[in-house]
Structures are given as structure tokens and as C-alpha cells.
């Protein structure tokens, strides 16, 4: 057994880019994830951040094998699951579960909370100790919901409560890894804190590992042990949370951090801000060389032609840049 619950080696996922209607032809590929190396240790929370379209959600979904990877390897719990069939994935999925962003569309409106959560048991043919109903009640209690509400439907709950139902469902099979895709971004601020605290507690109690996909850097900083910054399908920088936030080495990380509004007016007024020009380039036709060169203020000629290698800049910090800070 290795120390890593999850290891992504050179993972790529390209989607065909189509044009036209019924007789569409493939015009190219969307390089959603392009050669990504990420590890998640047991009991660790790895935050995956980046702007929309950077491929962070695709990484999460490819790990779950909801997408078939184009190339690369996914090693989960010592097993290479890259080419597992749906059938083979079934037993793996009981050890890795996902929490989704939108608590409104991720729960079937026609099923009661009890049947939503217990479906994990039926699908995997597991008979939990003390019976299914007992197990579901315990799960509801665990995530801070009233076990009496087992026969209610999702619409009877608020957004934060629904997210708790999603978390209970993910926990039913006692997974080792949870991929959380923007689990709190649809919630109000005061409710966000409740759910973040719940995830913290559950991790301590069950020794869970999290791959925490989010765009909200303050939440990621709070919950993660290590942070991976992605831009246009590539990993720009990876570092323990503290190093990343205190000493970002990649210009993009620096810009991203300086763009986050700080809920403290004095700091907001005094700090230096880097405002990036323009928008994210299209992943169908990414810039040559370093993908960030079109918006980078440090870009030189070499950045336009050669892809920067990922270098180890500090013991646990890697950065893909020709001119790291």
C-alpha cells in the first residue's frame, strides 16, 4: 500500500470540438485536461482551483471515471483504474464518492431522502448493520439533519440542508476518497460556513481524503492541506496551502490571489493588485508555449514558443513557469 490514495499521472482528457448540425464533423479537440500530475495522500485534502474552463471539474469527473480519460493513468488505492470497465468500476466507486455543486439538480425530486441515501446500499448490494433504515437515520444524524425527516422529499429542504443530504449519500458506503465539486458555492455565506465545518468534522472522524474542486480561494485555503492551481487544462503551481498563499511562485497564482476581494477594507485599500488583461483563451486553440503567456505581464519571447517544464522549486512546491517569482 502506498501513502497516496489517488495518483494522477500525466492525465489528459480531450473532448471533440464539433461544428455544424446533424452532419457535424469533428473540427478539433477541446484540451480540457492536458497532462496533469496530482497526488492525494490518505487523510489529506487537496484543493483544486482555477477559473471557469480551466479543467478542474473535468479532473474531478475523470477521477470518478464519469469521463473516460484520453491518456495517462489514474491510480486509486494502489490499483490502476484507468481502463476499468463500468462493471469493474462498481466496487471502486464504493470507495470513492462525489459531492456535487448544485444541491437542487443532484437529488432526484421524486425520491424521498430515505430512498436517495439508501440507493447506495441497494446498488452495491450491501446490507448495513442494523438494517438500511437504521443506517440512513444514523447518516442523517451525522450530517446534522433530523432523522425524522427520512420520508421527506428534497424540495422540503433548504439549499444547505440539501447539500447535507448529498454529503450523507456520499458517506453511506464509507468511502476513502470524496471528490467534492464546488460543494458550497451555491450556498449563502452563513450556510457555507456550516457545510465547511461539517466536512472538516467528517474528515477528522473518518480519516477521509478530499479532492476539493472550487473557485473560491478563501474556502480552499481554509479547508485544504495542499493546493493545485490550474489554468487552461494545465497545472501551473502546486504547493502546501500556506506556502502557496504566502509565497506564490507562479505569476498566475499571484494574479489570482490578488484578484480575490478581501473582506477587510484596510487590507483591500493598501495591497497591490494585479489586474489581468483579457479573458481566458479558448481551450480548443490554446496559446503556444506557456498557455498563460497571452495574459502574463512577465512573458518574454521564450514563453511563446516553449512549454515550461514543471520544476521543483521548494521541497513540496512545484511550478510550471520560465520565470518563477
Amino acid at each position: 500500500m502506498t501513502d497516496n490514495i489517488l495518483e494522477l499521472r500525466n492525465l489528459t482528457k480531450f473532448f471533440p470540438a464539433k461544428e455544424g448540425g446533424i452532419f457535424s464533423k469533428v473540427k478539433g479537440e477541446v484540451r480540457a485536461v492536458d497532462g496533469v500530475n496530482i497526488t492525494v495522500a490518505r487523510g489529506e485534502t487537496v484543493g483544486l482551483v482555477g477559473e471557469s474552463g480551466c479543467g478542474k471539474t473535468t479532473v474531478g469527473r475523470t477521477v470518478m471515471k464519469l469521463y473516460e480519460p484520453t491518456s495517462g493513468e489514474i491510480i486509486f488505492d494502489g490499483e490502476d483504474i484507468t481502463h476499468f470497465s463500468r462493471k469493474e468500476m462498481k466496487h471502486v466507486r464504493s470507495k470513492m464518492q462525489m459531492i456535487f455543486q448544485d444541491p437542487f439538480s443532484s437529488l432526484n425530486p421524486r425520491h424521498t431522502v430515505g430512498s436517495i441515501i439508501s440507493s447506495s446500499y441497494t446498488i452495491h448490494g450491501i446490507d448495513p448493520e442494523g438494517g438500511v433504515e437504521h443506517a440512513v437515520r444514523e447518516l442523517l444524524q451525522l450530517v446534522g439533519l433530523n432523522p425524522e425527516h427520512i420520508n421527506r422529499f428534497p424540495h422540503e429542504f433548504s439549499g444547505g440542508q440539501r447539500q447535507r443530504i448529498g454529503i450523507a449519500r456520499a458517506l453511506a458506503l464509507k468511502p476513502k476518497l470524496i471528490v467534492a465539486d464546488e460543494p458550497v458555492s451555491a450556498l449563502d455565506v452563513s450556510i457555507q460556513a456550516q457545510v465547511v465545518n461539517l466536512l472538516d468534522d467528517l474528515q477528522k472522524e473518518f480519516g477521509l481524503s478530499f479532492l476539493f474542486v472550487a473557485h473560491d480561494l478563501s474556502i480552499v485555503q481554509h479547508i485544504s492541506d495542499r493546493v493545485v492551481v490550474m489554468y487552461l487544462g494545465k497545472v501551473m503551481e502546486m504547493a502546501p496551502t500556506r506556502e502557496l498563499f504566502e509565497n506564490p511562485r507562479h505569476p498566475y497564482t499571484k494574479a489570482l490571489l490578488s484578484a480575490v476581494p478581501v473582506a477587510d477594507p484596510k487590507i483591500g485599500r493598501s495591497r497591490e493588485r494585479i489586474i489581468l488583461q483579457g479573458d481566458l483563451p479558448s481551450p480548443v486553440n490554446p496559446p503556444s508555449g506557456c498557455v498563460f503567456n497571452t495574459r502574463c505581464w512577465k512573458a518574454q519571447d521564450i514563453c511563446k514558443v516553449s512549454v515550461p517544464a514543471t520544476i521543483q522549486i521548494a521541497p513540496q512546491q512545484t511550478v510550471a513557469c520560465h520565470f518563477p517569482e
Partner: protein
Amino acid sequence: MSKFLEVTNLNVTFPTEDGDVHASNEVTYSVGLGETLAIVGESGSGKSVSNLAVMGLHNPARTKITGSAILNLPEGPVDLISASTETVRRLRGKAMSMIFQDPMSALHPFFSIGDQIAEAWHLYNKGSKQDGIKKAIEMLELVGIPDPSSRVHDFPHQFSGGMRQRAMIAMALVNNPSLLIADEPTTALDVTVQSQILSLLKDLQRELNMAIILITHDLGVVAEVADRICVMYGGRIVEDGTVDDIFYRPEHPYTLGLLNSVPRISSGESHRLRAIPGQPPSLISLPSGCAFQPRCEYSSKVSSGACNTSVPSLSDKGSGHLSRCHLDTVDLNNLVKDKA
């Protein structure tokens, strides 16, 4: 001196089959030219509803609105609530305009960006079609769209999210309004684009001396751009003060809770977040007394039990810093200290 917009005791109620939804209750705020007022609150706190009432965008058949919203125009004050629909329509887009959260659904997909901006201009200006497009190009340049003379003919789907929001700002500003209401203008955008849009709004405000009302739930955004802040909860303003008042001397337990539940990037050690327990109230059956009472950790400390029975009034805690709480400042500060 009177402010440019003065909203006083605004009540907005939607009658429904389940009962009246009291979306906005006795809401009072004002904003001056060149000033940015931020209205902060969670979903369902009444922040958008109040401002839609100011813009006259509620369906009068399904809404009961009372109170007043005085717009102090150079040619004399107008009460937007009691004025005729026609009067308000003539002010909309000229004296005041609004930008929305989702630029994709606020722009018409069948018309080019230029046509849509020109349409707003033609409403109040005489000129040929070419003049309209010329004005649209000028506006796109102002909001920082690269190569505006060719992009003016693009359709909304050809613009990125950030560019659409810029186009919407261009459209809102084409007639030099004195008041801009921005309803969650950057919520749908990425942080790097968000900071572009916020600095654009600030620059434009300086240039055009506009009054801006920024409706948002993001305390970070508020800290960066606002001059004054109104915090709303359960359809009421619970605290009103300058940025420094709200962030460094919060008076209301809800504001305190809100500030505590945001993880701070600046703080070194990460500690457990102090979440506010419970859920926001339903606007159909607001709790009697203070709307925040069921979630408030200090309500048991008010000996008279007033939190359960009477709605606290919005009282001045010093130099225009208003708070709606039965606890006085000294007691609250002692309680907060005891907690910490």
C-alpha cells in the same frame, strides 16, 4: 443637503395563496452622487426586491408597494413610488439604470450588441442609425472592449462572460445616468474578470460622478468598492454604516456572524469557522419580534425578552451608524469579549 436618491419606509409585499410575502419592510436608505452604497444580504433578504421597486420594475397587479423613493433631479424631486408608470419609464435608462447578474439572459440573443446599445441611446436622443452605432462604439471603447468598431456588430453569444457584462454596463451608461443600480454584477464572473469589472465601475463612477447602488452577498467585493453599507436580513435593514463601521465596529449580531463565517485569506492559521446556526427566515411567516432572534446567540441575554415580542428599531449608535438590535453597544461588546 439631500442625497440623490432617498428611499424612506419602503414596503414591498407580494400577496400569494399561502399568505403575504413581506419581502421588504420599512427599508430606508439614501445614496449621493459619486457615492457607492452596498446592500448586503443573503438570498431572500429583500435586497433586490427593494431596488426593483425603485426602478419601477415590479408588476403593479401583483405587488403592494408603499413608502417613498425620492429622486432629487436637477429639475425637481420625483417620488418614484407614487409617480405614474409613464413618468418612471421616462426616467429609466436616462436618470437611472440597472445592470443585472446574468448578462447572457439580460441581453437579447437576436440583436447585435451595437443595436442593443444604440436602441437605448435612440430612446432619448435624436439621430440616425449611424449615429447610434457610432455612440455604441464610443461606449464599448469606454468600457474597455478591444477593437470596438468591429465588435459592435457581434452578437451576445460571441462575447465572453466578462465582455457581456461590459456590454451591459455600456448599455446602462449610454444616456449618462446619475444613478446606477448594479444587482450582483460580478457574481457570475471569475475572480480575475471580477476585479476588471469592479475597477471599471470605480473608474466610470469617478469620471461620470454617478451614484451607485451595489447589491451583493460578497463581503469581499463590498469591502473593496463601497463607501456605505446596508446589511439586510429578513426584509429589513439591520445595520447601516460606513465601510469601516461595518467591518471594524459591527453592531448587529447578524453582521458579526456574517463576518465571522467568511474564511479570511489574510489570516495565517486556519481555525474553525464560526457559522451562524439555523436557516434564514421565511418571508411569509417572519418570527415575531426580531427576525434574527431564532439564530442569535445573544438574544437570551436580553433580560426583558423583547427579542421575541418587539421588532427593535433602527437606532443610531453614533455618527450615523444605525443598528436594529435590542442590545446596546456596551453589552454586546462585553458579550463578544466573553465569547472570545
